[in-house]
């Protein structure tokens, strides 16, 4: 059942077995996984059924450090959460991403990829993608040889396949499931204002939520799960400072630290020798599954070169546009279809104009003969790379307050020399492999934009955000409370009944888009709760 909290009586009180705070990909997954159990489950979602300017305003934050996207744009505060921005890309983290890597300080999950595999399999269905098979050879062979693998030296470079969902907006797609679940109640427009920790400090007794029309609702539960997103999870823990003065789970000053995103930057272009079939490396459908492959370095090569993991996508010229511009155009289209007035109309129109101007500019230049047609064997290369877990890269509470009187966040995104070097070396190594295989040549940094990221001095002064809206690491998982906020079961170390799920628990980020992994982790948490809360 979905209940609008603005319609409930002020001061209402609920009690349940499991209270899920947050109705995004993680919160909805957990609620669905707990359907049909004997547990009474309540989900508190701060926003409504659709994004609104008023709701988004709560996500505004200050920006320090490396320029980052405005946080009220990079996240969505409504049922379904930031899946509203999701491009649909799914890929499990690599086994190496879970390992403690000598060359990557603070790496090493308390889980292995093998342990997470059964949950990845479940997550595939939830995220709306194909079979749990990411072997590029499988997909290459599945299309009768029409999508051959690039014949590169596999001991150095490997192909890595992303599967893509429609993409799936969790709030819309799973709304009926939530409506029909007899043991699940979803309270929308219920923003958590206070987490009431017992005086002894080890237990959360209740949360108090506030509606946009000023009413309060209290929820008592045996167990609470924080699922408000990669950044907001940290904020909620930090805001709860009544008993734990530094915030819940923050005895060792870890909450909000280790913020990571995936760095997504153009790095160069590839000129192939001739008619090499590149279909596997372009978005396409194989047996009903949309997918595309890119190139990554082998685990051995990463270890030998002491590099972070990364993926280089091979895009037809003109295929790549900024997320913001393309997203704005899609948003305007969607608003027009539903006959709704879009929020922030001017910004979206401006971004859409940019999107079409870019395409138009290219068309006009070609028509006028100012620019040679782009040959079919020329491709753009974009890197999508892991960021090193870095305690200095963080979010923390600032002094400014939101409309509920809660402190807003400050984003202080920091990148390291290893982050820059990894991008640079990955592209260099791939370039040499293309030459060694006689396939073609790579031009690294053919435009000024590219070279910014290949030159550490200039990278420190970039004025364009280059993340991926993938907010990772702020409540990291580790067996030791000195190195992690949550344990391997996602329970906050110093609490007996508070769990955190979502991309904030990632110990390191790999290069894979995080939705599939956070959904898998949430499935695993659901199983854990089913067996421990009886």
């Amino acid at each position, binding site marked *: 059942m979905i209940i609008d909290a603005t319609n409930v009586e002020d001061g209402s009180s609920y009690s349940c077995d499991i209270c899920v705070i947050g109705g995004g990909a993680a919160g909805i997954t957990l609620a669905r996984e707990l359907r049909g159990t004997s547990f009474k489950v309540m989900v508190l979602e701060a926003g409504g059924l659709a994004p609104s300017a008023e709701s988004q305003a709560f996500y505004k934050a200050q920006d320090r450090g490396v320029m980052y996207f405005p946080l009220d744009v990079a996240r969505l505060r409504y049922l379904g959460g930031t899946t509203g921005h999701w491009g649909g890309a799914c890929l499990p983290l690599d086994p190496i991403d879970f390992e403690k890597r000598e060359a990557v300080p603070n790496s090493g999950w308390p889980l292995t990829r093998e342990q997470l595999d059964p949950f990845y399999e479940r997550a595939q269905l939830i995220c709306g993608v194909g079979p749990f098979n990411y072997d590029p050879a499988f997909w290459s062979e599945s299309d009768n040889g029409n999508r051959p693998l690039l014949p590169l030296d596999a001991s150095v470079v490997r192909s890595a396949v992303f599967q893509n969902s429609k993409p799936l907006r969790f709030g819309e797609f799973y709304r009926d499931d939530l409506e029909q679940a007899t043991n699940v109640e979803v309270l929308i427009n219920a923003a958590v204002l206070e987490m009431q920790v017992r005086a002894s400090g080890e237990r959360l007794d209740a949360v108090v939520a506030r509606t946009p029309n000023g009413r309060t609702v209290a929820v008592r539960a045996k167990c609470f799960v924080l699922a408000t997103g990669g950044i907001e999870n940290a904020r909620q823990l930090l805001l709860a400072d009544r008993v734990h003065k530094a915030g819940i789970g923050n005895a060792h000053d870890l909450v909000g630290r280790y913020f990571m995103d995936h760095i997504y930057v153009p790095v160069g272009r590839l000129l192939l020798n*001739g008619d090499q079939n590149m279909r596997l490396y372009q978005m396409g459908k194989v047996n009903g599954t949309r997918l595309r492959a890119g190139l990554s370095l082998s685990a051995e090569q990463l270890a030998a070169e002491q590099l972070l993991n990364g993926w280089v996508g091979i895009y037809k010229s003109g295929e790549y546009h900024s997320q913001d511009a393309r997203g704005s155009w899609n948003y305007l289209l969607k608003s027009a279809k539903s006959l709704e007035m879009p929020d922030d109309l001017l910004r979206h129109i401006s971004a859409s104009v940019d999107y079409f101007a870019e395409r138009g500019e290219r068309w006009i230049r070609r028509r006028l003969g100012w620019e040679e047609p782009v040959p079919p064997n020329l491709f753009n290369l974009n890197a999508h790379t892991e960021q090193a877990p870095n305690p200095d890269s963080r979010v923390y509470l600032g002094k400014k307050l939101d409309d509920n009187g809660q402190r807003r966040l400050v984003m202080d995104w920091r990148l390291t020399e290893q982050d820059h070097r990894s991008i640079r070396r990955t592209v260099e190594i791939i370039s040499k492999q293309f030459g060694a295989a006689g396939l073609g040549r790579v*031009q690294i940094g053919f435009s000024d934009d590219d070279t910014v990221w290949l030159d550490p001095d200039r990278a420190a002064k970039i004025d364009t955000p280059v993340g991926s809206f993938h907010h990772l690491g702020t409540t990291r998982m580790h067996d030791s409370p000195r190195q992690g906020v949550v344990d391997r079961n996602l329970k906050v170390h110093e609490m007996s009944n508070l769990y955190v799920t979502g991309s904030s628990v990632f110990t390191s980020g790999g290069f894979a888009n995080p939705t599939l992994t956070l959904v898998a982790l949430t499935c695993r948490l659901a199983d854990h709760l089913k067996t421990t809360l009886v």
Partner: protein
Amino acid sequence: MRSVSRRFFLRVGGVLCALTGASIPFSLRAAPRLSGSSNKATPTELVPLGARYLRDYPDELATCEALQRHVATCDHRLLEGIVRDDFRRGDTVRLDGWVLARTEVRVAAAFYLNNVHPGGLQ
């Protein structure tokens, strides 16, 4: 800033073109033509690449001069094998961002030298 210049371009670009008849060279023309394929370069096309190499790496002049007499007759397959080995060993050069094998740019430089000094420098 980027979007402003783009809109500006859209408004005035066509007018400027009509007035000046100007053309903007596209950097693809500078892309290296590759060996062993439909992209195979002609010696003339390799000349600018060779010039660029010798400008950036003047110490290579003597080596490239030594190659001058052999480039016209060298076995293309053999050359391609050497180029691939260069890439495998990581013996590469960056010219205008292009990651190229040492041997292929030396050959380009030899073509350049043949072009400007057909009989060799001495």
